[in-house]
């Protein structure tokens, strides 16, 4: 794909999201949440490149969301709060990463899960500060110094989510194309060789881990500022599982996959919940099963095959 064509596609997709949000107001919120989760899934995808699955990335999502919730009282400006919360998550990612990059496969996945569950417990235990499962409400924040009404705030968050999604997708592509990103993919196939080329596989993985924590944190901050209410459930293992779910649904082959997957996931969920409030879980389960069995490349691969087919026709 040529660069110009890509830019057109990205702008078109963003325009489409905005158009849907305009015509169907209640979807504006759903789409913002989807993009926020897409950002976190981008982080999952990065680690998938190294063949590692994190079952604890909800940790960074929740950490940044809570950082935003607590920080909003001190720094009531979205455009300062958001990067601060995301950087906080990245810093936490660095500390945790120094430990977990020594492990692979199930151990990597489970240690991540364990740490996020510990964080979940911390949020519940420090009840006096966090209000436990009741969660805390985010105080209102300004946007570039402006006090916005609810409607304008909704649009601002959606636009911000779009900009951040495009930025991080671009950043990740650059990262993946770089020697570092290629070495990351090398961890999946031949980690030992990296060491014999004088590279530290752990440091390569650590760089990706911190970047993925940053992206998950960014997603978490956007999520918190959009729902305006954060609860420990954000750190629960099912949230992490959901992120992995979305990664596969969207397809691991492209940085567009997470966003495609997240939007499809959220829409499936809201429509399934609207149609059968009793059995939405089952419907999601079947969707996932069908994707894995018949289109293991995810929605992205389906889309590409369709577009490729159309071009030939």
């Amino acid at each position, binding site marked *: 794909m040529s660069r110009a064509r890509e830019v057109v596609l990205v702008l078109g997709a963003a325009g489409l999201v905005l158009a849907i949000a305009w015509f169907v107001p209640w979807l504006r919120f759903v789409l913002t949440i989807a993009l926020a989760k897409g950002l976190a899934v981008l982080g999952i995808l990065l680690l998938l490149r190294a063949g590692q699955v994190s079952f604890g990335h909800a940790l960074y999502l929740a950490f940044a969301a809570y950082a935003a919730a607590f920080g909003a009282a001190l720094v009531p400006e979205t455009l300062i709060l958001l990067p601060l919360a995301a950087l906080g998550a990245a810093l936490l990612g660095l500390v945790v990463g120094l430990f977990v990059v020594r492990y692979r*496969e199930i*151990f990597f996945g489970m240690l991540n899960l*364990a740490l996020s*569950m*510990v964080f979940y417990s911390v949020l519940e235990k420090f009840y006096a500060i966090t209000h436990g499962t009741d969660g805390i409400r985010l105080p209102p924040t300004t946007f570039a110094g402006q006090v916005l009404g609810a409607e304008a705030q909704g649009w601002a968050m959606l636009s911000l989510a779009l900009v951040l999604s495009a930025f991080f997708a671009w950043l990740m592509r650059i990262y993946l194309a770089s020697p570092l990103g290629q070495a990351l993919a090398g961890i999946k196939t031949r980690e030992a060789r990296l060491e014999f080329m004088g590279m530290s596989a752990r440091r390569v993985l650590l760089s990706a881990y911190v970047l993925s924590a940053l992206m998950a944190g960014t997603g978490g901050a956007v999520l918190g500022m959009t729902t305006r209410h954060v609860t420990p459930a954000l750190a629960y293992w099912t949230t992490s*599982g959901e992120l*992995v779910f979305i990664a596969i649904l969207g397809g691991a082959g492209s940085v567009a996959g997470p966003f495609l997957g997240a939007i499809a996931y959220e829409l499936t969920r809201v429509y399934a919940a609207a149609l059968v409030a009793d*059995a939405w879980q089952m419907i999601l389960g079947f969707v*996932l099963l069908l994707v894995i069995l018949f289109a293991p490349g995810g929605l992205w691969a389906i889309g590409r095959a369709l577009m490729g087919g159309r071009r030939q026709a």
Partner: protein
Amino acid sequence: MQAWLSENTLLLGLAALDGLSYAATVFMVAVGLNLVFGVLRILNVAHGSLFAIGGYVAASLGLFITSRGLPAWLSLPALLLAAVLTGALLGPVIERLLLRRVEKQEPVLQLLVTFALFMILEDLQKLLWGVQPVVSDAPVRLLGTVDVPFGADVIPFTAYQLFVVPGVALLTLLGLVWFLRRTLAGRMIVAVTEDREAARAMGIDAARVTLLTFSAGAALAALGGALASPTASLVPGVGAQTIVLSFAVVATAGLGRVEGAAVTALLIGLGRAFAVYFEPELEVVIPYIIMVAVLLIRPQGLFGVPETRRI
């Protein structure tokens, strides 16, 4: 330290008793998953659902026995029957229809297949058994209580908790160890666990071993649920709660090691009991703390063998 010990000896004894019985529960929850992971290299998320279904089936059988006025002792073999039924019916179906179809795929896809299955089974349980807590406590009542002396006092324990659960766990452990060491099928399972390729080269039918292992794992999960059903109340979501715990056990134990699962369950059981006695706030995070601590010292898990690759 000395003073604290002499003051708390009795309590420590009680805690150990509780810890042992809880460890038995944890072992029953995790051992099947551990076995399955060893052979299939899949973390079966639906393991929790199988646990829940085993419990529900057992409770239904128990309620049937009570409502028909059948002899109460029947409720004990009914627990076993529930496990066998669940394992024999669901195990092969899941393995053949789903897992086999993705065995060549990436591990994360295999794992997500079980995640999808978990979501489906979760709602299916709700459709079949409703949302009200289900329980059949006939086995507990049947066996009554045992008074354990505690200084001048006595502490009643149910015989079910004190003998049946740990007894079944011990029998399961011994039976599995015997099965894996002494029988042909068991040794094939071990061979596949240790080196799938080599096992295949030796002419072991890996597909059959996989099917057998998965069904056995499903039955063990269901047995865990069935054993818990007379005391626990089965509600929607009970499966999800057991999954994380059994994941932690598998990672701590070292891949596919039955003895590892037993030792890990003991660590978690005792750790939790001591937490409830002396530092209750730690109770919930005990399994994770143990896991992190173990993996810090032994990165391959308690009983795991470090993988060395030929280069």
